[in-house]
């Protein structure tokens, strides 16, 4: 009798936990064809390790630099850990987490997120944080990022956040219930379409140009983390002409880099040297670069990084080269897909990508 009772309790517990797990798996957004950036952070875990260069930052890194091109030209292994409106403290905790997986030779941080001193938006938080595996780094990132109306428990049990998606479920939610799609190239989001710059932004005066204390606190933490791990830190400002990068902000970054003896490159001042043509190299009027633009950036920046930090050319290492050849093949396959779509439809219907059949867990 007692045995039967225990069995019943165990069965009910299994059904309950299984039901909760299944409900969560169904209701979590899959980011397969819409807002695919939502999968950027998660995809790192399949590619972790062996990268000599780590880029961290927001969309100004994951849309503006092609690591595959950098590999093809210089044999540099690199990865971009970036997501939409990735805030500086998120970059810090993501970097801290990455250092558990690998020991890069250089870390590059894009400084645009210095302008955000406080949490900004729950939806963007989700794009960055939902994809992180559970660890103390995720906990700290969640605590640092939450808006007033957010609860940490919804990051622990995302079902509490996404339960209301029951009325928006599509076939995609069931098709990709236990699998996902591979869409990125070492954290780079490929776009081959073109939408040229038609106007340049006017710099609306700000009440205060000073970067906030919190931003500086995390910039210091990133620097100290790199120093502690004996990794050179490079600061960059990507060549995006929107949003405006103020001269006052530039001064603060130049001062910071000089004070701490860091390399700082503002690519907005190197448009011609990089060879960027905003008539052909952007897909959204200058906010982000498209594939040709990102490859130009990889070509220019890769040389600087290799020359300055004496990065090895791994193309001569057969094991690494074989692994990267797969990445290169996938890159060109998607490139071809996208150009085909552009020719066929006149716009990008999908971003391409390959289904990953195995279970995510």
């Amino acid at each position, binding site marked *: 009798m007692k045995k039967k009772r225990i069995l*019943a309790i165990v069965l009910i517990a299994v059904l309950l936990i299984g039901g909760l797990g299944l409900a969560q798996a169904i209701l979590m957004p899959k980011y397969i064809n819409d807002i695919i950036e939502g999968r950027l952070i998660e995809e790192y875990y399949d590619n972790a390790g062996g990268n000599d260069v780590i880029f961290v930052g927001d969309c100004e890194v994951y849309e503006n630099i092609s690591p595959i091109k950098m590999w093809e030209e210089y044999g540099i292994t690199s990865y971009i850990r970036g997501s939409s409106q990735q805030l500086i403290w998120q970059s810090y905790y993501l970097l801290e987490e990455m250092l558990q997986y690998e020991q890069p030779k250089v870390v590059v941080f894009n400084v645009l997120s210095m302008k955000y001193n406080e949490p900004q938006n729950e939806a963007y938080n989700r794009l960055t944080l939902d994809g992180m595996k559970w660890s103390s780094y995720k906990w700290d990132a969640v605590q640092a990022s939450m808006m007033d109306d957010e609860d940490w428990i919804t990051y622990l049990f995302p079902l509490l956040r996404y339960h209301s998606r029951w009325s928006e479920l599509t076939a995609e939610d069931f098709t990709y219930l236990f699998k996902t799609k591979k869409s990125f190239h070492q954290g780079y989001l490929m776009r081959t379409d073109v939408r040229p710059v038609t106007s340049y932004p006017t710099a609306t005066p700000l009440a205060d140009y000073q970067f906030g204390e919190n931003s500086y606190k995390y910039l210091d933490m990133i620097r100290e983390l790199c120093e502690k791990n004996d990794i050179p830190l490079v600061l960059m400002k990507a060549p995006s002409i929107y949003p405006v990068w103020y001269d006052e902000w530039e001064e603060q970054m130049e001062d910071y880099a000089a004070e701490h003896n860091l390399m700082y490159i503002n690519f907005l001042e190197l448009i011609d040297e990089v060879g960027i043509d905003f008539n052909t190299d952007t897909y959204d009027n200058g906010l982000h670069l498209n594939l040709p633009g990102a490859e130009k950036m990889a070509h220019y920046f890769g040389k600087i990084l290799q020359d300055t930090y004496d990065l090895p050319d791994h193309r001569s290492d057969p094991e690494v080269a074989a692994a990267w050849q797969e990445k290169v093949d996938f890159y060109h396959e998607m490139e071809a897909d996208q150009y085909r779509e552009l020719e066929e439809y006149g716009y990008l219907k999908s971003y391409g990508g390959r289904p990953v059949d195995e279970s995510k867990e």
Partner: protein
Amino acid sequence: MLFTSYNFIAFLIVIFLLYYLVPKKFQWVLLLAGSYFFYACAGIHFLAYIFATTVTTWWAAKRMTAIQQEQAAYLKVHKAELDREQKKAYKAGMKKRTRHWMLACLLFNLGILAVIKYTDFMISNINSIFHTGFTFMNFALPMGISFYTFQSMGYLIDVYRAKYPCQDSLPKFALFVSFFPQLVQGPISRYDALSQTLYEEHSLDWNNIRFGLQRILWGFFKKLLVADRLVVAVKALVGSPEEYTGAYVVLAVFFYAIQLYADFTGGIDITIGIAEVFGIRVTENFIRPYFSKNINEYWTRWHITMGTWFKDYIFYPISVCGWMLKLSKWSREKLGKEAGKRVPVYLANIVVWFTTGLWHGASWNFIVWGMLNCVVTLVSYELEPLYARFHEKVPAASGRWYDGFQAIRTFWIMGFIRILDCYRDVPLTFHQVGTVFTTGNWGSMFTGISALGLGAADYGVILFGAVMMFLVSLKGRSGSVRKQLAEKSVPVQVIVWFLLFFSILILGAYGVGYDSNQFIYNQF
């Protein structure tokens, strides 16, 4: 801390675990600490108010009991020496002393309530009548002040009436006043009922926990699936009165009736369920109110503890007080037997409904709401002979269908009176209700319903929730639904548990994208 917040659920889990871990004699102490912590979360400075009410009421009741005991002891010792008149005079003197304590305490505590809750209402009226410019005080209303004040004053009057002796322990009395599940929106418990289980030592009892959790889940179901969804449409309908007239007013009445029922009874379900998990019995506050066949029955089924409070502590005292008896006698003499006997009934009803309205809120809409209830009550009273004659002549007007007709009639009458809560403006409410008879927009209502901030999925969930509430109410007519469920096989019980739990978890209106809605009765 909202009942529906993660913090409250975490708080509840911690209190529950500690409750059954600490030595049983400290269980009530833990509840007291938890209740004060819960109250402090609403604003630590508010503790001063509840503490003041607790201490003054406890002290006054102690003094009254001491006087009553002194009286009993004196009469016992001097029984033989005193004649009837002397005893009567002595008792009257002692009664006067107890009354002084009671009145002083009532004055102090109702004074606090009056000042905090009604000062701005008074200022607003003075300003509009005398065209003065007194500035508003904007006192912050301590959480549950109307509930704990009335509960404490009920205790005080009961002790004055020597219904039971006072509670000697201040901490124990403080727990009676502040018991956290009922602090937010009642019920208004009676000391003699609640104290039976409040201070008892409780062992972990599977039935208490199972029944309590079921009741809590059922409360969450009503609140999160129905009330917190419908509130969006109600706010839209009431927020643009010039746009939503005629048929939309009928819709607002209907929606608000369901929303308020789901909200208030849901909150009370959670309250009773939490208490039950601790082994404590809290008085029921609702018994299928929308099945009521008339307004009198409605008020014995809706917010029962408030209705009985007003009946016991206002209606009866007024009906039997000296001046009322004199007035009754005078009116019978001057106006005749029939008209004369109505005078005390009418007066007592007017006072009760006026104060009931005022208790709900410091604004004219609540007072008019109370007075309309009074009018309907008295009209029903006057029409009783007419109904009796009608039933005599039409015996077919009875049975299930007629009961249904009466329930629907009562539902709509109460619904139209209640809509004053929503518009919060008396002339506007009357105007809006008037448009029901002048605006023929019934057709457009069916298309306009989709523009009220709710989609088809939301209406689907509301319909599902409302149907479930109706079915459970029907089932409840033949006894406790939870007991009926407990008699079913284990798989059936597990399926019901799962359905309830997953319905709340997935279909509930909570989290980002939804406004966290306070329970409506929290504001009172």
